[in-house]
C-alpha cells in the first residue's frame, strides 16, 4: 500500500505493477508507450457522472495524479477540478468529509482490498472550513488510518491564520494553500510532491 503512494509520485512503474492491478494498467501503458491512454475520468461524489474518455497521458515524465478534492463550495469544487485537470490530474470531488471518507473506503471496515478507491488516490486536497467535519478533522482521520495515512493531504483556506496553518502542518498536512487557488499554486503543489520523494 505504501509503495503505491511513493511510486505514484516517482517514476518506478514496476512497483505499481506488483501492488495493484489497476495501477498496472495505467503505469504500464504510461511509461512504455506514452501513447494516448483510455483512462476513466474522475467521478464526482456530488452528483456528476463519470465516463470513460480518451485522455492523453502527456510526456513520459508527467505524473498522472489521481486527486480527491473536498470542498463544500460548488464554485470552489469546479475551480479546483479545472485547475487540477489542466495539470493532467484525474480528479474526483466530494462535497464533505464524510463523502470523502466513504470514497476512500473508511466508511466500511471490512474493506481491505487494494482494488478499492483508496489505492487509486495519490493526493487529497481539502478545504479547511466546512460544515460538519472540518478539513482539519478530515486530515486527522486520514492520518489516524493505517490504510490512508501515507496519502499526502493538502489543506486550503481563504484565511491566512498562522496558528491554523501550524496546526495542520503538525497534524501531518503536506502543504497549506491559500484560496483563491491559481494555476501557479497547482504548479507549486506538484513541485512540492515531487521534492518529497527521495
Amino acid at each position, binding site marked *: 500500500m505504501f509503495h503505491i503512494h511513493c511510486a505514484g509520485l516517482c517514476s518506478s512503474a514496476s512497483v505499481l505493477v506488483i501492488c495493484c492491478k489497476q495501477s498496472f494498467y495505467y503505469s504500464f501503458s504510461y511509461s512504455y508507450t506514452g501513447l494516448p491512454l483510455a483512462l476513466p475520468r474522475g467521478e464526482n461524489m456530488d452528483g456528476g457522472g463519470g465516463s470513460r474518455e480518451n485522455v492523453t497521458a502527456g510526456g513520459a515524465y508527467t505524473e498522472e495524479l489521481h486527486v480527491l478534492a473536498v470542498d463544500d463550495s460548488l464554485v*470552489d469544487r469546479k*475551480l479546483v477540478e*479545472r485547475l487540477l485537470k489542466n495539470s493532467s490530474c484525474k480528479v474526483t470531488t466530494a462535497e464533505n468529509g464524510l463523502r470523502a471518507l466513504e470514497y476512500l473506503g473508511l466508511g466500511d471496515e471490512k474493506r481491505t482490498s487494494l482494488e478499492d478507491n483508496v489505492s487509486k488516490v495519490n493526493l487529497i486536497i481539502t478545504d479547511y*472550513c466546512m460544515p460538519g467535519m472540518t478539513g482539519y478533522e478530515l486530515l486527522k482521520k486520514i492520518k489516524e488510518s493505517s490504510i490512508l495515512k501515507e496519502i499526502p493531504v493538502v489543506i486550503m483556506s481563504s484565511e491566512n491564520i498562522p496558528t491554523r496553518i501550524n496546526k495542520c502542518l503538525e497534524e501531518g498536512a503536506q502543504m497549506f494553500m491559500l484560496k483563491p487557488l491559481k494555476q501557479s499554486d497547482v504548479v507549486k503543489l506538484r513541485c512540492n510532491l515531487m521534492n518529497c520523494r527521495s
Partner: protein
Amino acid sequence: MDSVVQLQRQLVDYRAQLFNEGFLDEQFNQLQQLQDESNPDFVVEVVTLFFEDSERLLDELAKALEQQSVDYRKIDAHVHQLKGSSSSIGAQRVQKVCIGFRNFCEERNIEGCQKCLQQVKHEYSLVKTKLETLFKLEQKILAAGGSIPLPM
C-alpha cells in the same frame, strides 16, 4: 452592425473598465486562462454557479436577519461562503462588503448587518449585470466569427 474588430475593442475596453472600477480582480483573469477549446464555456459555467449560489445565500441571509432571535453564527457562516465564492471568481466588490459584514456579525451588530446585507445585494446585482453584459458581448463576437481577445 459592428464589425468583429469593433466588438473586440468594445470587449477589451469594457473588461478594463470592470477592473478599473474594482468589480473584477486578477482572479477573474485566472478563470479566463483556464478556459480553452476543450472547455470553451468554463467561465460562464463557474460564474453561473456563483450566481445560483449567491442568490441562495442572499435569501438565507435575509431570512436569518428577520428572525426574532438572530443567529449570528449562522449569518457569519453564510457570509463566509459568499466571501469565498466571490473571491474565487474575482468579484472583488462583493468580497469586500463581506469582510465588513463578518465584522458586524462578530460584534452582533444587527443594524450593521442589515446595512451590509443591502450593500452586498446591491454589489451582487451590479456585478451580475456587468458579467452578463460581458458574456453577451463575447457571444456577439463569436457569432460574428471572431475570437475572444485574451486578457492582457
